[in-house]
């Protein structure tokens, strides 16, 4: 049985395509790609995923609510991290900017991982509050099997719990 995972990442196709090569070739995973927030939320509503990997800086997609939040947050570059807002809306301890209705029960922090260019020290406080433990930073040295690595860590984490 293939592990089904969702990768919410606007650069998945254009910038990070080499990260998906090992995923397809391994034959063990069933990747679904969402290039923006609206698409990501739609996918979460539609299917159950074994793992969800989220970028921190994301475009809103076709959603006026998320677009408004995106425009507002971009006025201040320090807060222009829509992916983080999405995570708070999905998992956060009551700090939602937008209330996401109808999210299935399986949407829990232990199924989520963060893959981003942001430094861990910048995010640690948020990750702790969100309860997300799987994190990888995109750097020039990031291996192209990073997605597999993260999915396996999420899988182990869930098995442990």
């Amino acid at each position, binding site marked *: 049985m293939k592990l089904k995972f969702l990768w919410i990442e606007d650069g998945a196709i254009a910038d990070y395509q080499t990260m998906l090569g090992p995923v397809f070739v391994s034959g063990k995973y069933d990747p679904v790609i969402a290039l923006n927030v609206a698409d990501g939320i739609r996918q979460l509503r539609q299917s159950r995923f074994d793992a969800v990997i989220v970028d921190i800086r994301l475009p809103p997609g076709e959603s006026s609510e998320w677009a408004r939040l995106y*425009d507002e947050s971009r006025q201040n570059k320090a807060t222009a991290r829509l992916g983080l807002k999405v995570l708070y809306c999905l998992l956060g301890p009551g700090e939602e900017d937008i209330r996401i209705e109808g999210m299935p029960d399986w949407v829990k922090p232990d199924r989520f991982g963060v893959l981003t260019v942001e430094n861990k020290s910048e995010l640690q406080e948020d990750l702790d509050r969100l309860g997300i433990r799987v994190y990888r930073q995109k750097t020039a040295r990031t291996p192209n099997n990073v997605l597999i690595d993260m999915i396996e860590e999420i899988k182990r984490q869930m098995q442990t719990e």
Partner: protein
Amino acid sequence: MPEENNLLEMARQLTVFDLPLGVYLVTRGGRFVQCNSRVREILDSPGGGPLGRLITDYYCNPHQREELKRKLEDAEKQSRWLEKQTLSFKVGDREVFVQDYTRSIRDPATNEVLGYLCCMVDVSEEERYRQLFKDLPIGVYQLDENDRCAHVNQAVVDMLGYKSAKEIEGRQVQDFYANPDEARELREIMENQGSVVNKKMELIKKDGEPIFVSLSALNNHSPDGEYAGREGTMMDVTTEERYRRILEDIPVGLYVVKSLNGEDVITHCNEQFAAINEFNSRNEAIGFRVKELHASPGEYSRFISALKDSANRDEPLHGYALNVKSRRGSKLVFEVNSRLLTDRSGKIIGRAGAVRDISEEAALRRKVTEVTEDIGNVLHTYSSTLLTLQHLISPVIQSMRPDPFDGDKEMIADLAVAALTGPTEQLASSLQKLMELARSEDRSSALPEDDWQVLSHLFHILRNVEQQITYTELRPPTIAEAANKIVEVCGNIQKGKFPKEALRQVRNDAQELLRICNLIALHRARDVIIEMDHPVRALREFVTSNARKKEARSVCKVSMLISQVIHNLYGFARSRGVTFKQRNDSQNATVEVIERDVIRALGNLLHNAIKYSWGRKEGEHPWILIHTFTEKDQVHVAFENWGVPIPKGEIDQGLVFHLGYRGKLSSDRGRVGTGIGLTDARRVARDHDGDVTIDSRPALFGGREDDYKQPFLTTVTLILPVHSKQREKGEKNEA
């Protein structure tokens, strides 16, 4: 009694003219009939008998007599005489004030007025005081023992904005103070000290407006020594006091330095100046040798030279950053704005100025300069690195010939997939052959079953790549990964278990497929390098623009600037397969600009146009229209491209001009950028009194304006003023 009777008899013998005050009798027309010596004394007419003049000859205002007659008539109707009328007489060169008492003498038969019997008392001295009290240009007031206003003069009335003294007199003085505590404080001072001099108090006018007065007052005492009120003067000093308070409250140090005995000494300063120089008070600062506040003698000399240089240009010194050593030894940086003071002969006698502590700002400026230089260096290194990579990649690509890709064309997914189709099929076929050759008894000894499963899976991927990988962009890396895996797994096959030819064929086909995949990756890397080259250079130019020495403006032909920009971006345009179409309706237009900046600005706009262009028709290269025209003394350089839309909201709200802002659709097809190009271009345009405008609308007729999946026609225009001489020439020709 006899004595008293005798006295009465003697008094009866006296006439009214023997009374000890001025008594005179005049006809109805004012001719003197009789007067006593006191009248002569008052009117300075010694001698005896009647005065040979009319009473009106003495009136400063002769018409006043007619008014008095009317008043007398009214009084006598009420059985009274006219009393205490103050008259102003002209006696020689003097003005004499008398208080007059009058009754008429009437014909008993007809009751007709025959004349007037009057008394006069010289009140010149009292009247002068009264007049002085009334007319003094400073306020004079008197309070009674309960601090009620007993008398105020007209100046007080005017100062407080009332119509008459009556509106003020009788009211408690506290009513006129802005702050009741101040009124109580003054009363305490008066009780303790008996007087105050020039104390500044805030009062409230009738209309509620506050005013400041300078008040001097002295207590009055009753004969038994008790407080009996006070009297004093007050001057309206509202303007002075407001300025004084502004100077004290303003968070800028103000000072005057004068040369005294060869030393520059602080002669005046406000509290703020004293505070930022870490004096305990203003008084401590006054008289201090200002040279001791400068960080070093050299710093002081440089400052004086700068001050004199400015004075030679007939200008004050503005924004001079001065290193200071405060009274307590703190090292500070002040921004000084100062002007030399000279006497009437032009000799320098000192200077006046304003200082502001900019120590934190100066440290920040230093940091910004350092960071600017650092970033400049880093970006310079990036440019070099990009060039190195480009030079490293090119020979590698050459060494991997035959190259199915055009050397200058952008590596788009469709091209890559097209080039991979044949070799992928080839590898799938040879792999299929190999797997078919594997007899069941040799199969497990040649390769573990798991590896066979892997090969089977990889074969499946290669054969059905279009169904397996729906995103075209993801096929090349997946195919490359699959080919690598096949090579790896086939390397594990035990020798002698298969015909060498079949195995070699799989390896060769896999290597060929990898070669194409690697060429795709190298071409793509080269595209990214070329795309990044301009943003990195432009970013470096932008970051270091303030650190560079400001370049002079020069007159340039716009067509020359455009040619230069096209030349700079030719490589990038070629890599994207973009061509240019030029329409020049302003062949000889010139502008007076900083050439380097304007070329960078135009380059930013053209780079965007290239980056965001799509092919207009299947099989046709994308192209950009560069249209130059002149309108209302301004040259417009418009870059029109067909491709990625700019959402209306981003244009209307000016978001696209925000530093670092990348549009919602700007990362379309993996386009890279810094979000600085448009900001920089508009800044450059505005520095030259021009602007940048943007228009983006659906390219196809009838397209919805909010459908951003369709192509848009985007026009970004750099507007610059036509060079003034050319403009004048144009105007003359027109005339």
